[in-house]
């Protein structure tokens, strides 16, 4: 059993190392949901190690993991504990034992190329009338918009802000429009390896056929999988915060307006902890005239997960009362910030909901960095 799971993980291309584990508890101690849910990844590794895993179908908490990878970042023995959860999920996917909402999202991705249940033909509807060209017409930079910014009303505003910012900076960019298909980052993390492989097989040639040296993504999740899991050797993959920080530094993006607000920033796990991009988002915010930038207590490597990753956008979780995003927005409000800046569509969704539920709407507004930049142009 132990050998089976280790072998399965290897076959899935994961670096999981069950035999390296010394049961120190660093993983569970840092797991953001280990207090609010029954998930104990340290214990799970032990159960795998001694062939004592329980019936996985009964463990609903396996779907609680947000794949923030705090455990992977901190494990002193480089065991990569979260990858055990991904391996176990893949077994559940194989046997069809997955939460219905996750199943729906996967089916939607398979049929329409997005998890939100919208039609593929409508993917670029948000861009109409904005003068955004197709990447097929030739461009220097390919902008991978992503599923949520393409379809979700709140995030579409971020996409439109992005277009405005790129145009203002004179960037020669294009989008794939209806050719754009889900990147599969969360697909892989809920363990649907077959679908992920298909998305890579079909998506990679599309991206490569555009033939541009630089691709930017709106979402840290798309960024993560394109950068590490697609093998795009000819393309430099950048998250938009890296791209904008570079434009500002090179003097290509300047501000004539201002945002006279106190702003704090929430690190997305897939940008921060997993890709160590901490400085660029902050440098952009600090470059915006009028912004008074303040930090929360838990930032950068100690940032608190919003609970939206790893398939959690499609699964409520076993504890809906004590959401991490609730804690997070209170922490943001305590800094006296009027704006909680984010750089990820999932963080936007989780934190904006939390602001509403926690009754902080009159004190705190969640905005993407792109929106703040657009406002200050």
């Amino acid at each position, binding site marked *: 059993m132990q050998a089976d799971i280790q072998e399965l993980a290897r076959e899935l291309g994961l670096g999981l190392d069950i035999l390296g584990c010394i049961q120190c*508890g660093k993983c569970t101690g840092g797991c953001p949901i280990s207090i609010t849910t029954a998930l104990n990844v340290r214990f799970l590794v032990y159960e795998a190690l001694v062939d004592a895993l329980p019936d996985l179908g009964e463990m609903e908490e396996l779907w609680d993991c947000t794949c923030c990878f705090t455990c992977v970042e901190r494990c002193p023995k480089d065991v990569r504990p979260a990858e055990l959860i991904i391996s176990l999920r893949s077994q559940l996917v194989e046997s069809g034992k997955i939460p219905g909402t996750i199943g729906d999202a996967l089916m939607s991705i398979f049929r329409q190329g997005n998890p939100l249940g919208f039609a593929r033909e409508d993917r670029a509807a948000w861009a109409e009338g904005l003068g955004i060209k197709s990447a097929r017409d030739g461009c220097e930079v390919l902008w991978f918009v992503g599923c949520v910014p393409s379809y979700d009303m709140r995030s579409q505003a971020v996409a439109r802000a992005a277009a405005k910012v790129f145009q203002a900076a004179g960037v020669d960019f294009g989008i794939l429009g209806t050719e754009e298909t889900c990147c599969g980052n969360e697909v892989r993390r809920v363990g649907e390896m077959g679908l992920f492989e298909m998305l890579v097989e079909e998506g990679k040639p599309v991206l490569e056929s555009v033939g541009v040296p630089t691709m930017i993504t709106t979402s840290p999740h798309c960024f993560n999988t394109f950068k590490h899991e697609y093998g795009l050797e000819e393309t430099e993959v950048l998250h938009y915060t890296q791209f904008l920080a570079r434009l500002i530094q090179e003097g290509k993006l300047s501000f004539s307006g201002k945002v006279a607000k106190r702003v704090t920033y929430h690190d997305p796990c897939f940008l921060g902890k997993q890709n160590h991009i901490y400085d660029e988002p902050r440098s952009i915010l600090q470059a915006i005239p009028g912004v008074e930038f303040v930090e929360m207590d838990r930032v950068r490597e100690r940032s608190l997960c919003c609970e939206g990753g790893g398939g959690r956008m499609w699964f409520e979780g076993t504890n809906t009362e004590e959401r991490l995003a609730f804690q997070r927005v209170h922490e943001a409000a305590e800094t006296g910030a009027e704006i909680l800046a984010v750089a990820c569509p999932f963080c936007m969704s989780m934190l904006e909901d939390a602001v509403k539920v926690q009754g902080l709407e009159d004190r705190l507004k969640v905005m993407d960095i792109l929106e703040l930049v657009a406002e200050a142009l």
Partner: protein
Amino acid sequence: MIESAMPNRQPAIEEGDMGSRPRIGVYICHCGANIASTVDVEAVVEFAKTLPGVVVARHYTYMCSEPGQALIKEDGAKLSLDRVVVASCSPRMHEPTFRAASQEGGVNPYQFEMANIREQCSWVHHDPDEATAKAKILVAAAVAKAYRLEPLEDREVGVTPGAVVIGGGVAGMVAALDVADAGFPAYIVEKSDRLGGRVADLNRTFPDLEPVAEWLPGLVERIQSHPNITVFLNAQVAQVEGYVGNFEVTVVENGGGEEQGSKLQVGAIIVATGYKVFDPQRKPEFGYGVYPQVITTLEMERRLAEGDLSVNGKTPEHVVFIKCVGSRDKQLGNPYCSRVCCMISAKQAQLVRQALPDARVTVFYMDVRAFGKRGEEFYDEARRAGVRYRRGNVSEVYRRGDRVVVRVEDTFLQRTLEVEADLVVLAVGMEARDDADEVAALLKLPRSADGFFLEAHPKLRPVDTAMDGVFLAGCCQAPKDIPDTVAQARAAAASALIPLLRGTVPVISETAEVDPELCAGCGMCVEVCPFGAPALDPLWGVSRVNAVLCKGCGACAVTCPSKAIQVRHFRPDQILAQVDVLAG
């Protein structure tokens, strides 16, 4: 004595050898049944007798035994042998044995050659016919080489009395003291402005809570007043030349902005450069440098010495220790145990219990390693003093009001906790110093994967290095506590005293030599030599090999584009004769 001073030339051929045929004795060993049960030793003997130059061939049960060696000695004298071949085991163990026996039989010990018909034949082959055939070839190859071997001389070189000790911490001071007490000059080169090293930053020591102030000043005083010890403070070793027995160490003192250099002549060098305290900012999850409540064990030493444990003017109600900070961590590249942070935590936790009887003291651990004399007892005492040990590797520290929260899974409870604390002590480990690169380059010291200096053998040569005459003491070799450091320092001193007391050191004879007629002076040998043995003669523009530095590795010989360099005992004609037989 020093051969580099002599002009390079082809080796002299002894009178008796001139024009006369070599007289070779061949001895086949049974090694009990190890060889003889697979190889037909009698057949090999009969075959050996047919080889060119072989005067006598015999077989015997154990050639390494007294009677076996006696065969070589007697034949050597009686038959006027000038070369000996023994076919037995690997030369690793018994080459010195048979060289000595050959010498006693009147044969130059460098005209001895060994054929390995055990590891390379009888142990790995099962078919007796094939094994015997292979043994014959191996013997023939050894005979072919022996035929062409030339006599070499054992060599020795005089030793300059005295030792340089790099580092003035406990390891360096103790080592210097032993060298000095044995009657030799000892020079301590210390980078900082004081003696005492890291131990001077400590308050009390485990496992007895003894104040450092009770013994360290006395040790420093003995160093300062010792007539044989010279201390250089604010000083560094800038250059090391020479070899075991005769080093020239250039020391640069940087006092008051003025640089001053001294050249020290010594026979041995002891490296006692110590360690670097792990910087906990590399573990950002602990919030060190962010929260005043989070300090290191070294900072705690100072607070305990000053008797001030308050944080923001408040007496702590809960003090938490986090162990293994920067240690046992693959991701940091520090996979090793610090070997001290368990005991330091046990010590400080007890002292906190004494200083603040009302405060709760918790030690979070992955494992408790209480090894060493009185280690486990000390751990018992800590728990009995009311220190709470809880198993779990703390994952994160963050703020809650004016306290901090330690987020950790108690792995026995199987529950993640947010433990509020007023003072969090990080038990930081040890790392190789940043200047270990420079020291390693100066002394050509190899390092282990963890960055510390590498001993010559983990068990049998723990204070020696790959460089003869250079010894290791203390935490520059690996993390260790004070008793282990002192033990190793005294071992290093004892080892350094061996050449100093003998007054001479043996040097190998199988060294490289340059034919000045062929040398083009390109200097490639100088670049490739790991021991600094060859140097270009500024007058003649050709390379000369310092035979005392040369280890006979042959790197220069294979690099030399004009084939001007040969290694004695491994000359091309000797090797090729062997190859011809093996390939034929």
